[in-house]
C-alpha cells in the first residue's frame, strides 16, 4: 500500500470543494442552531435555492450570471421569511418540522416533471457556469509541493475559501457584538430576553435569514463546481451531514464548522483509500468486504467516530467543556 499517495490524496480533500461546501452550510447552521438554538433541518433547501437561482436565471431564462447570484441569495431570504414567519413565534420544534418538510418540497418540485421546463426535472440543469469560469484569472495549473490543481479547480477553491473566510469573519464579528449576545440569550431562554426588552422574533428571523443565505452560498459553490444543478444532491442527508460536521467541530464556536468540514472530508477520503488499498492487497478478505463496500463502511466509521466524540468530547473539538457541564446541572 502506498501510504504516501493515500495521505496526499486525502490532504487534497482537506481543502477541497466538498469541505468548502459543507463548511459554508455548517457555518449557517452554526448561526441558527449553535448560537440561536433554532433547529433548521432544511439547510439543503437553502443550498438548492442558491444553486437553482444561478442555474434557472442563466440557463432557463438566459439572463446574466450576476442576476443569478442576486436571485439565489434573494431566494434564500424569501425562503427564510416563508419558513420563519409562521413558526418563529411558536415552540422550537415547529421550525424543525416545517424546515425538514420544506427541504423535501424544494427538492421534489425541482425534480418534478411538472416543473421540468424551468428546473430541468431530475436531471437538473447544466450550462450555467461559463460566465463564472470566464472570470478565472488562473491560466495554468498550480503545483504546490506534491499537489497539482487544475485551473478550474483552483478558481473554485479560491472563490470558495474566500467565501468561507468572509462568512467566518462575519460570524466572528457578530458573535462578539451585543447582537450576538442577544442571540445567545435567546438560545438559553427566550422569555428572559423578551423580559429585557428585546424583540426576540426579529432576532430569530435575522438569524434564520443569515444562516440560510450562507446555505445558499454553499449550493452556489457546489453547482458551479459541478457545472450542474442536480436536485438530488440536496436531499435531507445534506443537512444532517452539515449538522454532524458542526457538532464534530464544535457548535457555537467560530472555527468549529470549518475545522469539522475539513476533518470529515479528509477522513472520508483517507478511510476510503486505505480500505481500497487494504482490499487490493488482500489484507481484508473478500467475504468481509470488497471495494464496492468502502463507501458504506466509511459512513459507518464516521458514525462510530461521532458517537465516541459525543461520549468523550460532547462539546466538539473546539467547544468549551464547561458549557456542556452546565447542561448536566
Amino acid at each position, binding site marked *: 500500500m502506498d501510504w504516501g499517495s493515500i495521505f496526499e490524496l486525502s490532504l487534497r480533500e482537506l481543502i477541497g470543494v466538498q469541505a468548502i461546501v459543507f463548511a459554508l452550510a455548517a457555518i449557517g447552521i452554526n448561526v441558527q442552531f449553535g448560537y440561536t438554538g433554532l433547529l433548521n433541518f432544511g439547510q439543503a433547501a437553502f443550498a438548492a435555492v442558491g444553486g437553482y437561482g444561478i442555474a434557472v436565471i442563466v440557463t432557463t431564462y438566459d439572463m446574466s450570471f450576476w442576476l443569478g447570484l442576486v436571485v439565489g441569495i434573494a431566494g434564500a431570504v424569501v425562503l427564510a421569511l416563508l419558513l420563519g414567519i409562521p413558526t418563529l413565534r411558536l415552540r422550537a420544534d415547529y421550525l424543525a418540522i416545517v424546515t425538514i418538510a420544506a427541504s423535501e418540497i424544494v427538492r421534489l418540485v425541482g425534480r418534478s416533471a411538472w416543473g421540468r421546463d424551468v428546473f430541468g426535472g431530475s436531471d437538473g440543469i447544466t450550462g450555467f457556469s461559463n460566465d463564472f469560469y470566464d472570470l478565472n484569472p488562473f491560466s495554468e495549473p498550480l503545483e504546490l509541493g506534491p499537489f497539482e490543481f487544475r485551473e478550474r479547480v483552483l478558481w473554485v477553491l479560491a472563490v470558495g475559501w474566500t467565501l468561507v473566510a468572509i462568512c467566518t469573519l462575519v460570524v466572528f464579528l457578530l458573535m462578539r457584538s451585543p447582537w450576538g449576545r442577544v442571540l445567545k440569550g435567546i438560545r438559553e431562554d427566550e*422569555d428572559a430576553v423578551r423580559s429585557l426588552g428585546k424583540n426576540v422574533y426579529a432576532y430569530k428571523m435575522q438569524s434564520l435569514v443569515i444562516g440560510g443565505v450562507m446555505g445558499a452560498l454553499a449550493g452556489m459553490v457546489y453547482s458551479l463546481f459541478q457545472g450542474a444543478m442536480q436536485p438530488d444532491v440536496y436531499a435531507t442527508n445534506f443537512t444532517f451531514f452539515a449538522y454532524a460536521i458542526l457538532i464534530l467541530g464544535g457548535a457555537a464556536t467560530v472555527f468549529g464548522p470549518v475545522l469539522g468540514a475539513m476533518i470529515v472530508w479528509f477522513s472520508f477520503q483517507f478511510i476510503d483509500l486505505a480500505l481500497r488499498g487494504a482490499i487490493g492487497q488482500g489484507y481484508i478478505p473478500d467475504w468481509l468486504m470488497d471495494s464496492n463496500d468502502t463507501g458504506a463502511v466509511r459512513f459507518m466509521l464516521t458514525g462510530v467516530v461521532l458517537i465516541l466524540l459525543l461520549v468523550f468530547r460532547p462539546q466538539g473539538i473546539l467547544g468549551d467543556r464547561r458549557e456542556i457541564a452546565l447542561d448536566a446541572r
Partner: protein
Amino acid sequence: MPDDNVSSLTAKREAAVAAFADVPREPGAKKPDPILVADDVKRNFGGLLAVDVDHVEIQRGSITALIGPNGAGKTTFFNLLTGFDRPNSGSWSFNGRSLHGTPPFKVARAGMVRTFQLTKALSKLTVIENMRLGATRQRGESFWRAMLPFTWRSQEKDITERAEDLLARFKLDTKRDDFAGSLSGGQRKLLEMARALMVEPELVMLDEPMAGVNPALTQSLLEHVSNLREQGMTVLFVEHDMDMVRDIADWVVVMGQGKILSEGPPETVMSDPRVIDAYLGAHHDQSLAELEQEFESGALTAAAEAELSGDVAAAPSSEPQAPPSPTEDAPIDGGPADEKPAEETVAAERTGDTKDGR
C-alpha cells in the same frame, strides 16, 4: 451606608406610607398617583378562571406586595400585565398608556420589567454578559452596526461600568466572569434582579424573589428591594414570606382564586379575616409533606379548630379573650410557622413549578 442615605430612606418610605393614608382599605381602592391601573382582567384556563381582577391600582413610588395562596393567580396576573400571556378580556395601562396586547419586549421598553418565579439566568452567558444584555437601546444590537465595533464600543464601556456598579451592589462582583449557570439559586435570583435593573425600569415586578433563597441572603435581598424605592422605582412583588411583606411593603394586595380579596397596609391586611380564610382554604392544594410540617408546628390544628368553631371569618377578631396564641393566624403570620421560612418558601417554589412550567 452613609447616614444621609438612611434618613432619605426613611423619608421615601414615609412619603410612600403617607400616600396611602387616605386610601380606603378595600379591594380595588383608588390610589392618589397610580402608575399601573388594571380593569376587568380575566384569564380562563379551560373553565378555570385563574385571574378575575375587577380593578386594581398600583401607587407610584411605593412597594406593593401581592400575596395569596398558591394557585391564586398571581403569576398568571404578572404574565398578563407584562404581555407574556393574553387575557380573555380586560384592559390596563401603565403611566396612562394602554398596554393591552402589547408584546413583552415593548412592555419592558415602556419601563415595566418583571422577573420570573422560576429564575431565568442565562446559564451559558457569564454574569457580566447577563447584565449587559439587560441594557436597552444598544447600538450594537442592530445587525449591521454589530459588525462595526467602533460604532458601539464606547456605549458598551458605559454599559459595562453600570453593570459592574450593580454587581458590586448585589455582591456578585466576584462572580463577574463566571457562567451564570454556576451560581447558586439565591445568587441567580440576585442576578436576575440586577439584570432587570439594567433596563432602568420605572416599575419592577418581582415574582417570588425570596423563593429558594438561602436564609442568609434574605436580609440583603430585602435591602435591595427597599433600595429600589429609594431610587425612585415602584415595586410590585409576589411573596409568601410574611416577614418580608411586613418588613418592606407599604401596601398589600391579596389575591385568592383569581380575585382581589383585600387591600391595605400590611398590619391591617394580615388580620383581615378574608385573608386568613383564603390562606386556610389553600390547605386543600398542599402536599402531604407540607401538611405534616404544619401539623407539627400547630398551624393545622389551629385551622381545624377555627373551622370547627364554625366562624372562621370572625375567628381572629371576635375572640379578644383568647390568649395571643400562635394558632389562629399561624398560616400567614407569626407563631411557630415563622421558624421555618426556608422550607416554606422552598415548598412554595416546588408547588409553583408545575403551574409555571409554560
